[in-house]
């Protein structure tokens, strides 16, 4: 076979090549191609095919070894390939399992919560450790987190720090209170001091003024006394002088008394001031120190002034005393002399100085004798005095020394006290200054510390705030969700019950509506069925309008009517559309006409019984005609149940068909006519077509009428 093919190919190739006028080369190629291949070509082909198959299989196995997906695909698509692969490559590696990260989140959460707890605890410890910092948020913050006992513990913690430290607000309040108290005290103190100072100053000034006045008065008195002593004035002027002197004396005494009283008052005020200052000092308010110091200085200066004035007054007084003593002595001497003079010359009048013209010689002699006697007495006294002078002087000196010493001691003590006071004041001032400096420094340091502390507190508070916030949010969210689910559940329950009731009512309503609708529908169906039946009847009637040899009227109208009458009925619609188009447009032939026509067909079919594809010359026509004339068959013969091969003869078929037609079986006749072959078939073709049309139409119409009847029956049967 191969050789034949090759030869055929050869010849064909040659023919086409030669036909085209192609040069010799391809022919030679052709020839060489085909010349040596006859013997080993089969072997070559076998070898080539074996190689190809082996290469394909090996390549597949190699690639499967390299690519597991491809291996899997091949195993899936080609059966038993997995065994081959298993033999060649070994079992396939299992696919890499991708493990989901299971259960990592809870661990993380737990670790986070632990971290959180740990962070809380050192904070709590810090709170407890740091007693100075008012940390009220520390104890309450862990409280909501932990259990009740922890909360109890924390309340205890809260109580404990309250002993050492007070909460910030309280401290602040306290400090504010303290400040206010201090301020109040300060203001009161300063006001007190000022008042005291003011009054003391006033009184002291008054005292000083009084002392000055006393001094003035004493000085004036002394001066006047001296003047009175030394001046020689006429007696009336002397009396005025003495009167003036008396006035001066009284004034002096008065002013001295006043000065003394003022000094006493001043001293009392000074003591009071000192008491106030001491009280202020006892209060130990730092801010008041400068004012206290100032007050003390003032006090000291006042004291000093007062003392100086007092000493001046005292010296003046002593001077005045001397002068008054002198004046007293003089007066005494004068009085003595006067007395003596009076004793001697009683008749002399007092103002003996005016008596120089009136004195007698005796008087004068007695006077001179008295004077001489007096002079002698005086001389004697003077000598005595000179003798006792030294003793007197010594005693006086000693007395003076004593007095001087006393005075010195007093002065020294007062000066010492003053100095001491001064030094104390200076020291206090210096202390005050240093204290201020220290305080300023301390304040800056404290400020720095406070700043650092506030920063730290701020950070800590921020972190705590965040934590607390997130906590609170969590709690809020969880509680919210709970509430929401609860609410949803309740509403859902309500909704469900309501829906149930509504559904029940609705179902009943629907049932009622459906019953009514079904009634309506049933009636509608009945009407439709009736209509359908009517239209089908019309169609039937149109079928009967076929005249002999003429087709019926076109069925289109009736079919249209049917289609309209059964618009929703799919079956009827399908059937209506199943009618052949020729029947609609042109109508169908009746059975009788077909039957009549059949005889003509039969004649013709008999005449051309011998003609088919192979035999169709004119001679065959002649022979066929001859056969038809000479052959006799039964006019009608009952067709058997099964057609055998010999029954397929034209004449027999025609007689069977005639028989069936006579007995009204158009279908069988058509079937039998369909078995004709050749020219007879061609001749009967039209008739067959018409017969088919008629049969189809009749079938559809019968179906439709059956359907209409069934529907009508169904509707009448409906309850």
């Amino acid at each position: 076979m191969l050789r034949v093919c090759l030869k055929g190919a050869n010849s064909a190739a040659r023919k086409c090549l030669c036909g085209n006028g192609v040069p010799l080369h391809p022919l030679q190629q052709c020839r060489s191609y085909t010349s040596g291949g006859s013997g080993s070509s089969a072997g070559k082909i076998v070898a080539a095919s074996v190689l190809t198959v082996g290469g394909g299989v090996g390549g597949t196995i190699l690639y499967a070894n390299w690519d597991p997906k491809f291996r899997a695909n091949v195993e899936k698509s080609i059966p038993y390939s997995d065994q081959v692969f298993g033999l060649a490559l070994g079992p396939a590696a299992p696919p890499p399992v991708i493990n989901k990260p299971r259960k990592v989140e809870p661990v993380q959460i737990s670790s986070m919560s632990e971290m959180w707890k740990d962070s809380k605890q050192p904070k709590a410890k810090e709170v407890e450790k740091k007693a100075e910092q008012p940390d009220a948020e520390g104890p309450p913050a862990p409280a909501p987190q932990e259990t009740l006992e922890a909360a109890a513990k924390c309340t205890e913690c809260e109580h404990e720090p309250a002993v050492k430290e007070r909460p910030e607000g309280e401290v602040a309040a306290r400090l504010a209170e303290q400040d206010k108290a201090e301020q109040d005290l300060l203001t009161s103190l300063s006001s007190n001091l000022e008042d005291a100072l003011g009054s003391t100053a006033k009184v002291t000034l008054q005292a000083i003024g009084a002392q000055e006045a006393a001094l003035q008065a004493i000085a004036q008195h002394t001066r006047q006394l001296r003047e009175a002593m030394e001046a020689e004035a006429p007696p009336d002027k002397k009396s005025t002088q003495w009167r003036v002197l008396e006035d001066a004396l009284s004034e002096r005494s008065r002013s001295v008394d006043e000065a003394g009283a003022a000094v006493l008052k001043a001293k009392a005020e000074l003591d009071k001031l000192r008491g106030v200052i001491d009280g202020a000092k006892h209060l130990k308010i730092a801010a008041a120190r400068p004012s206290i110091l100032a007050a003390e200085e003032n006090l000291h200066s006042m004291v000093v002034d007062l003392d100086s004035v007092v000493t001046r007054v005292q010296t003046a007084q002593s001077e005045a005393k001397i002068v008054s003593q002198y004046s007293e002595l003089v007066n005494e001497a004068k009085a003595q002399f006067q007395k003596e003079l009076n004793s001697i010359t009683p008749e002399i009048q007092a103002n003996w100085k005016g008596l120089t013209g009136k004195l007698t010689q005796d008087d004068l002699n007695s006077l001179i004798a008295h004077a001489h006697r007096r002079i002698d007495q005086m001389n004697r006294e003077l000598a005595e005095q000179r003798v006792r002078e030294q003793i007197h002087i010594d005693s006086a000196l000693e007395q003076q020394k004593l007095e001087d010493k006393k005075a010195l001691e007093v002065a020294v003590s007062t000066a010492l006290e003053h100095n001491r006071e001064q030094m104390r004041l200076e020291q206090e001032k210096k202390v005050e200054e240093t204290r201020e400096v220290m305080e300023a420094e301390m304040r800056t340091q404290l400020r720095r510390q406070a700043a650092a502390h506030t920063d730290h507190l701020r950070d800590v508070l921020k972190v705590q705030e965040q934590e607390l916030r997130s906590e609170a949010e969590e709690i809020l969210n969880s509680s919210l969700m709970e509430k929401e689910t609860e609410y949803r559940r309740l509403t859902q329950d309500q909704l469900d019950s309501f829906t149930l009731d509504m559904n029940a009512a609705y179902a009943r309503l629907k049932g009622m509506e459906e019953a009514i609708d079904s009634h309506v529908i049933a009636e509608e169906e009945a009407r439709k069925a009736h209509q359908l039946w009517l239209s089908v009847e019309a169609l039937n009637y149109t079928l009967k309008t076929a005249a002999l040899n003429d087709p019926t009227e076109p069925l289109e109208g009736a079919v249209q009517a049917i289609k309209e009458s059964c618009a929703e009925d799919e079956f009827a619609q399908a059937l209506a559309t199943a009618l052949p188009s020729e029947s609609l447009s042109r109508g169908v032939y009746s059975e009788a006409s077909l039957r009549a026509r059949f005889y003509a067909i039969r004649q013709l079919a008999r005449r051309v019984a011998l003609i088919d594809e192979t035999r169709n010359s004119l001679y065959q026509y002649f022979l066929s005609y001859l056969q038809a004339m000479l052959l006799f068959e039964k006019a009608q013969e009952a067709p058997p149940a099964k057609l055998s091969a010999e029954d397929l003869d034209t004449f027999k078929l025609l007689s069977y068909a005639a028989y069936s037609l006579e007995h009204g079986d158009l279908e069988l006749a058509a079937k039998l006519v369909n078995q004709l072959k050749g020219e007879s078939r061609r001749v009967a073709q039209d008739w067959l077509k018409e017969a088919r049309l008629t049969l189809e139409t009749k079938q559809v119409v019968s179906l439709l009428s059956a359907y209409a009847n069934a529907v009508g029956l169904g509707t009448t049967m409906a309850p």
Partner: protein
Amino acid sequence: MSEKELGKKLDRCLADSAVKLGAGLGLGIVFSVVFFKRHTWPVAFGLGMGLGMAYTNCQNDLRAPYLIQRNIKVSNATKY
């Protein structure tokens, strides 16, 4: 109608044969008279040609349905 076809064909045949025969006769006579010195054989020839043509035409006409036309491709039988 397919049954009337045969009759029509035969009618055509007859008409055609009549025409052909007549034409053959005529041409034969003409040829015989003009070219062939009134021999009878051109007439017979013409008649025969006419008859033959008519026969062939009739045959072809009757065969026409069974002819396979060239422009219709015959599909490969080995397909199924």
